[in-house]
C-alpha cells in the first residue's frame, strides 16, 4: 500500500490509525509514495479525536511525545519508522520504549532529541531586525533550522512576542505574526536584505558592544562555547563576527592586566575623609548576636 506525501504528525497519525484499524502490517506499507519536497500547508484532514484505533492505554503517552518530535526530523524514513513502532507497541510489545538497545527505539529517541535540541536552538538564536514595512514596525528574521520545526516552534514566538509584528523566514517554511493571526507559508531563499550585514538595526551595535564587554578575556574557553553554539549557526548571529578577534586578543589583554602594578586598598581612604567616615560607619555596624548561627563565625 502506498501512502503519499505525509506532511506532518497529525497527518501521519490519521493515516496510521486507518492502517492499524485495517490490520495492515508495516512491511506492507510504502510511506514514500508520492514525494513532496516541501511541507504542505493545508490543514490536515480533520479526523475525530475519539478514534479508538489505538486505545489510550495501549500506546504510552511518551510515545506520542517522542513521535511528535521525531515527525519533524528531516528524513523521509521517519513515517515508516513511526508506524513500525506503533505496530509493535500495539502488538504485544507495549514496554518497547524501555528497550534502550532496540535499533528502532534508539533511532526514535535520537530523532526526537535532535529535533528538540534544534527547536531549543531556534528559540535561542533567532535574531530579529526591526524594519518599517508599509509604515508598520515589523521584526524580521532569517534562520536555517536543521529540521522541519517551523510550524511547531511558532507557538513559542507567538506567546513571547505577541504584541509585535514579526516574520521568521527559513528555507523550509516561514512563520508570520501580525498580532492577530499566525500564518505559515512556504519556505523561501534567503532574501538579499537579510544576509548578515545587509539589513541594519540600530540595536545591533549595542548588542555587539554588550557581547564584547561581557566577555572575560582571562578565561578563554572557545571549545565550551562552540559545543553550545556550533559554527553552523554563526552566519545568522551578528555577534559571531566578533568571536575571532575577541579570542585572539584575549591573551594580550590578560597579560596587560597582569602587568599592571596592584594598588593600595587604602589609597582612597587615606585621601578622602568622607569615604573613610562612610566605610568606618559600615565597618563598625553591630548585628544582634543571634543573627548568624555560630558555625559561620569560625
Amino acid at each position, binding site marked *: 500500500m502506498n501512502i503519499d506525501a505525509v506532511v506532518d504528525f497529525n497527518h501521519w497519525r490519521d493515516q496510521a490509525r486507518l492502517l492499524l484499524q485495517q490490520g495492515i502490517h508495516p512491511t506492507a506499507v510504502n510511506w514514500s509514495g508520492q514525494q513532496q519536497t516541501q511541507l504542505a500547508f493545508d490543514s490536515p484532514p480533520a479526523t475525530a479525536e475519539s478514534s479508538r484505533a489505538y486505545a489510550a492505554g495501549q500506546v504510552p503517552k511518551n510515545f506520542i511525545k517522542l513521535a511528535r518530535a521525531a515527525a519533524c526530523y528531516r528524513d523521509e524514513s521517519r513515517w515508516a519508522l513511526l508506524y513500525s513502532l506503533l505496530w509493535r507497541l500495539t502488538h504485544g510489545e507495549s514496554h518497547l520504549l524501555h*528497550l534502550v538497545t532496540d535499533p528502532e527505539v534508539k533511532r526514535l529517541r535520537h530523532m526526537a532529541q535532535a529535533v528538540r535540541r534544534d527547536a*531549543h536552538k531556534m528559540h535561542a538564536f533567532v535574531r530579529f531586525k526591526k524594519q518599517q514595512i508599509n509604515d508598520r514596525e515589523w521584526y524580521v528574521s532569517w534562520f536555517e533550522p536543521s529540521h522541519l520545526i517551523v510550524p511547531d516552534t511558532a507557538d513559542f514566538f507567538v506567546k513571547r512576542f505577541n504584541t509585535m509584528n514579526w516574520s521568521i523566514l527559513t528555507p523550509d517554511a516561514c512563520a508570520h505574526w501580525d498580532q492577530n493571526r499566525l500564518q505559515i507559508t512556504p519556505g523561501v531563499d534567503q532574501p538579499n536584505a537579510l544576509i548578515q550585514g545587509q539589513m541594519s538595526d540600530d540595536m545591533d551595535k549595542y548588542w555587539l558592544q554588550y557581547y564584547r564587554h561581557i566577555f572575560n578575556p582571562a578565561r578563554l574557553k572557545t*571549545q565550551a562555547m562552540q559545543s*553550545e553554539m556550533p559554527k553552523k549557526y554563526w552566519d545568522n548571529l551578528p555577534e559571531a563576527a566578533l568571536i575571532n578577534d575577541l579570542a585572539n586578543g584575549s591573551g594580550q589583554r590578560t597579560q596587560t592586566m597582569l602587568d599592571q602594578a596592584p594598588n593600595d586598598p587604602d589609597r582612597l581612604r587615606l585621601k578622602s575623609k568622607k569615604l573613610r567616615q562612610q566605610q568606618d560607619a559600615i565597618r563598625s555596624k553591630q548585628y544582634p548576636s543571634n*543573627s548568624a548561627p555560630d558555625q559561620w563565625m569560625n
Partner: protein
Amino acid sequence: MQLMDKLAVLADAAKYDASCASSGTTRRDSAGGQGIGSAGGTGICHSYTPDGRCVSLLKVLFTNFCIYECSYCVNRASSQVRKARFSVAEVVKLTLDFYRRNYIEGLFLSSGIIQDEDHTMEQLTLVAKELRLKHGFKGYIHLKTIPDASPELLKEAGRYADRLSINIELPTQQSLKMLAPEKSIQGITTTMSRLQAGIDEAKSQRKNRQTISNRRSQATFNFAPAGQSSQMIIGADDSTDGTILQTSDRLYSQYRMRRVYYSAFSPIPDASSALPIQAPPLVREHRLYQADWLLRFYGFSTQEIVPTVGPEAGMLDLHIDPKLAWAIRHRDWFPINVNRAPLELLLRIPGIGARTAHKITRVRRHRRLRLADLQAMRVPLPKCRPFIETLDHTPAASLLEQDNLRRHFIPPVQQELDLFQAPPTPLVTAP
C-alpha cells in the same frame, strides 16, 4: 557619557557574576496582547561568549561607583577603572530593545553601593517596577540585593523580581573581614533570611489560593518565585574546598538556595595588593561545581566528598571528578550490581548520572542489563567498568585492589600542564 560607553563600562563591571539562570519561575506569557515576553520554561541561552559562558540575561551593573572596598572586586572604592551610572530609563530601554530582538531572556541587575544601601536598592527596584508595571514585561528579572537593604525595600523588590540574590562572597567571617571589610556574615545572612521568609510566605499563599480556587479575586502576593541564589569567590582566601562546601551546604539547608555559584577569581584590571598573588586553576571551580551536585542530587555529604585525612585533606582531587575520587577511596562499596542495587547506590557509581540512574531502574523492570545497554544510555564504560556488575560483566577483583587505580583514570601528562596553568597574578570577581 554616551549610552554606548556606559554599556561597555557597566557590562565590564558585571561580568564576574557567574549566575545566568533564567529558569524555574512562574509560567506566563504575553498571549492575549498584554505587555511583552514570556517566562517559566527552561531557561534559554541566547548566545555564548568565547569564555564559554552563556549569555541569557542582560547582565549589567546599575552603577559601578562603590564605597565598599572588597579587594577581589573590580568596582571597589579604590579601583581606578572607568566609572559610570545608568539612569532607570536607560536600563529599561536597553532591556526591552534587546528582548524584542530575541537577544536575551531578561535582565540581571546588580550595583555598586552609592550613598547608602537603601538608596541603591531603591534604584534597582525602580527598574524592575517600571519594566513590569509600565511595560508589562513578562521576561525574567534577577535583582542583586544590597547587603542591609531595609525589609520594606526587599519586599518591594521581591514583588517584581523572579530571583533575588545576595552573594556570600567568601566562606568564613574571617575571610570577609580581611578581604571585604564592609561586609559581614551577619549582614549577609540577615538578608538571606528575609528573602527566605518572603519566598516562603508567597509560596504558602499560592498553595492556599489553589485550594480555595474559587476566590479568584484574592490579590497574589508575589515574591521572587525563582528563589534566591548566591556566589562564592574561589581562591582569594585560603579556605579549603571542605570549608567552601560546608558553607554551601549551610546555604542550601538553612536558606534553601536554588544555586550557589563558584567563581574562581581571574585577573582584573587595576587589582588590589590585598589579594594573593596566585590565581586558582579554573579546574578547581569546575570540581567544586561537580561536588556541589553530589551534595544536592546524589545524597553525598561534604565529609564524604572531600578527603578528611591524608596529605590532600580538605581539598578535591583536581585530576579526577569528585565522585570517582570518592569511589577510589571507598572501594569496599564496590562492585555495585546495576541489576539489583537500589537507586541510592546506583547514584554512587562513577560515570552514572542521576538521569541515567533513574533510567536504569525503569529499564531493568523489563530486562536485565548488559554492558551494551549501558553503552546505549551513553554511560562512559571505561570509567564505570571497574565498579559495576552487569549480566555479562564482573570486574576483575584485582582491579579494585590495585594501589594505582587512581592513575588509571588520569589523562595523559599534557593535560596536567593545562590543569596547573594558572594566570600568575592578582585576580578576581565582583559584587
